């Protein structure tokens, strides 16, 4: 006999605010090169949304929707994007992790020196790496909490 789930009040509110937390996490990730924040911070926010679901609905129910293996593959993809961007840096340009997008149309706008309102289409490879790291952190933290919640739950 196990009581994984919390009361309906908690579950409903968790389901309601879950999309907002995810959107906020995307905002933090996407604006990492303009405002405080970035891939790690946004990823941690996104992972905390999933952790909230684990707390509210119980690890077993979350596992039915998102297995820890698929979360860890999601994480692997984030890592792969990072390394591949790094390798493109020296295959196509000059050195490993070279910021080869500066000056290009995509993400390449160089902002004027000093204070400015911020241009989203800037930062070179930084936004791409932010997204990669964001994916990685969401997948990684969520899967490790999920695994620990599942492991802690089956003592008897």
């Amino acid at each position, binding site marked *: 006999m196990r009581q994984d789930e919390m009361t309906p009040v908690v579950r409903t509110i968790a389901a309601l605010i879950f999309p907002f937390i995810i959107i906020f996490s995307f905002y933090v990730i996407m604006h990492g090169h303009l405002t405080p924040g970035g891939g790690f911070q946004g990823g941690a926010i996104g992972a905390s949304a999933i952790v909230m679901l684990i707390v509210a609905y119980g690890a077993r129910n979350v596992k039915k929707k998102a297995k820890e293996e698929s979360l860890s593959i999601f994480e692997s993809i984030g*890592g792969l994007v*990072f390394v591949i961007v790094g390798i493109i840096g020296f295959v196509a340009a000059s050195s490993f992790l070279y910021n080869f997008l500066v000056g290009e149309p995509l993400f390449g706008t*160089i902002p004027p020196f000093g204070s400015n309102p911020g241009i989203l289409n800037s930062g070179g490879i930084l936004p791409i790496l932010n997204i990669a790291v964001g994916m990685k952190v969401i997948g*990684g933290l969520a*899967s490790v909490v999920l695994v620990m919640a*599942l492991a802690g739950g089956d003592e008897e």
Partner: protein
Amino acid sequence: MRWVAFVVFAAFLLFAAYELHPFGELDDSRMDDYIISNAQNETAANNAVTSVVFDYRGYDTLGEATVLFTAIAGALVVLRRVKK
């Protein structure tokens, strides 16, 4: 015995804090000044911290992403179910 080690260690660290420069007055900031002044030009990003994290020290960040990946793989290995 452990107390002696602890007290020696404490004195050692307090001496380090005593020797440090006063809070807010830096000894040297050549590397950081260069980064603050050139981050916008070289990396096209407004946030100098992000340009350090992903560009100037991007390799460290790769290592850090690896650490996270390693820890998760490790946790999955440690907590996996094997028959005795």
